């Protein structure tokens, strides 16, 4: 009941998504290293990209995601801002209007709240307002979710809030490989992307597959074709009996659950949703349509969470084939609790196993 993410998170690495994975060079990196490397390559590839936020410069960010980047790329490209989130995001709007590709950071998820006005009323709407003449090519990096026993406001799950806002796209990587590639992909796109980094996974290592021909080539330039396989969800473990849908740190946990369930002969499929907006509905329907049972797992509170959206998409696409209503295993409708209660709050292995049991044992009428 009291297992923590850090103690048990060396889950089986996910299958690399690169199309040429077999011949591509592979390195074992932590997510922090993978993100740092991606930013380094992005900055090198496009002079229009700028990385900034609180303590992003000399310190390299409190999570060291921007470590060494200022020394390498200069203070014009990587800089510290005054301590003001609305300022950081509002400034991003103007930089994007001036043709730059801002990659701002808010230090912790809970501090995106002071910037909500700029994110929702400005960044999300400027393209619409300007009839597409002022694209907001902004990638907002948000160290997200809980699991590190941090103080209040350092462990929020804002995905439903962001995904609900027209004009924003939201993505969350679950391992170093995806972190590297999804960040590069997000920065290459012309729309604002909220990039939710699962901070409890920053230090977990995993294989990162680079492009075979040009392992270090940046993808930050406009016009680069979308990386195959990065735009939707991915099946990180195939199974026949039930689909677990998760994102961020919960993917690794669901993989652990799948291992345990396998000992009881339950064959669990794990789908990493990755994009929380737009949601890859066909992938959900394909997986749940095959297994005929689905459980959504997320850290955010239950009510009006993304689990409801996922459940509806599955229900709509697989109503006739489903053997049970889609189940949800989530955080509770409470403010994020203090560290000692974190393991009670976050979906843990037992609660996810119970969720699986509920869909397996469901009886009609």
């Amino acid at each position: 009941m009291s297992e923590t993410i850090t103690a048990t998170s060396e889950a089986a690495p996910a299958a690399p998504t690169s199309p040429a994975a077999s011949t591509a060079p592979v390195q074992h990196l932590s997510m922090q290293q993978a993100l740092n490397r991606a930013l380094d390559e992005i900055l090198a590839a496009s002079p229009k990209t700028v990385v900034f936020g609180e303590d992003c410069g000399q310190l390299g960010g409190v999570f060291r995601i921007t470590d060494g980047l200022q020394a390498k790329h200069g203070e014009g490209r990587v800089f510290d801002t005054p301590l003001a989130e609305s300022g950081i995001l509002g400034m991003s709007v103007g930089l994007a209007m001036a043709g730059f590709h801002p990659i701002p950071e808010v230090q912790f998820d809970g501090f995106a709240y002071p910037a909500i006005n700029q994110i929702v009323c400005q960044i999300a709407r400027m393209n619409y307002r300007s009839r597409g003449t002022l694209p907001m090519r902004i990638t907002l990096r948000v160290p997200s979710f809980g699991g590190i026993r941090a103080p209040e406001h350092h462990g929020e799950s804002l995905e439903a809030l962001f995904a609900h806002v027209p004009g924003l796209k939201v993505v969350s990587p679950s391992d170093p490989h995806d972190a590297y590639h999804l960040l590069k992909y997000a920065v290459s796109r012309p729309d604002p992307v909220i990039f939710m980094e699962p901070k409890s996974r920053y230090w977990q290592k995993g294989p990162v597959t680079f492009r075979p021909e040009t392992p270090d080539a940046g993808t930050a330039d406009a016009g680069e074709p979308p990386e195959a396989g990065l735009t939707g969800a991915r099946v990180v473990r195939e199974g026949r009996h039930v689909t677990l849908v998760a994102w961020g740190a919960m993917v690794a946990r669901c993989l652990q659950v799948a291992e345990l369930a396998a000992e009881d002969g339950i064959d669990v499929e794990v789908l990493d949703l990755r994009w929380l907006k737009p949601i890859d509905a066909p992938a959900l329907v394909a997986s749940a349509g095959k297994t005929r049972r689905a459980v959504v797992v997320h850290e955010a509170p239950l009510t009006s969470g993304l689990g409801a959206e996922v459940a509806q998409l599955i229900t709509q696409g697989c109503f006739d084939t489903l053997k049970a209503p889609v189940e949800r295993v989530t955080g509770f409708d409470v403010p994020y609790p203090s560290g000692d209660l974190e393991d009670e709050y976050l979906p843990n292995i037992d609660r996810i196993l119970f969720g699986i049991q509920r869909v397996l044992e469901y009886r009609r009428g």
Partner: protein
Amino acid sequence: MDTTPTLVADDAAPLTHEQLRELYSLMAAVRQLDTAAVAWQRQGIIPGYAPELGQEAAQVGSGYAVDKSRDFVFPTYREMGVARAMGLDMVGYMSTHKATWHGGMYNPLESRFAPIQAVVAGSVLHAVGWAHGQTLSGKPAGELGAAMTYFGDGASSQGDVHEAMNFAAVMKAPVVFFIQNNGWAISVPTERQVAGGSVAARAAGYGIPAVQVDGNDVAAVFEATRNAFAHARSGNGPVVIEAMTYRRGPHSTADDPGRYRTLDEERTDAGEDPLERHRARLLADGTADEAFFAAAHQAAQDEEEAIRAGIEALGPRPGSEMFDLVFQETTPALESQAAAWREESEHV
């Protein structure tokens, strides 16, 4: 201790007679169009409008100093006179008030006029970001473009304004903060809105040079703005201008100023009418004569009629724009919502 930093002096020549006359013509055009827009609202031609009666000098004087080849303006919802002084397409500008659109100019990059902003102080930070982009672009001082951001005394209470001034000062961003202090934030007078004496007074706290200017004197506003631009474009960082003026009409066509001030107060507090004042000056120094004023007002009337015709001719925007303009790259969910909308509203 005197903490007020000084503005780098501008050595530009005084206004020519031609420019002084042009400033009058612009104010006349703005007064005419502004008055007409209120009438159009009463006639049901447009659903709503935010008048600027009395603010013509503040808007025309500052807008006239903008160099559209390099500067960028970040307006609020009340900068019709700035748009006109910048020579923008006024039918396009008015389409927002007609409610065919709520974005202001269709192409802000071309017009150098950012979308009309309903969130007070919302775009003040955008100006700082845009201006910092000028710095990052590596242009030498003197060739920089400057951002000019407009806001009111009410908006100056917003945290974003303070963040913006601090950011701009720390980054030495070429920004002109142009406060139109028209005495009111809807019903709340400046003295119940602004602590610290004035908005300009706050600039000292950020180490930003500030000037308070008579906002009813178009030439003074122009010169203050030109100085501020010169300072900012030379790489000296931001400037705060507080133009003291008075909103003579209602806050918007939905407002009833009789609930918070009397007509007598309005008359005594409003100060000199900016058009009358400039007219008297031009007459006194022989820069213009009655024939000039008559021609200016006739031109303003003709212009207003042409704009009204343009507005009446504006059809509704195609509904599909609702879906098409959300993203540069649309999403499957939006595509299917658009398809359902087409089908269900028989737009196929």
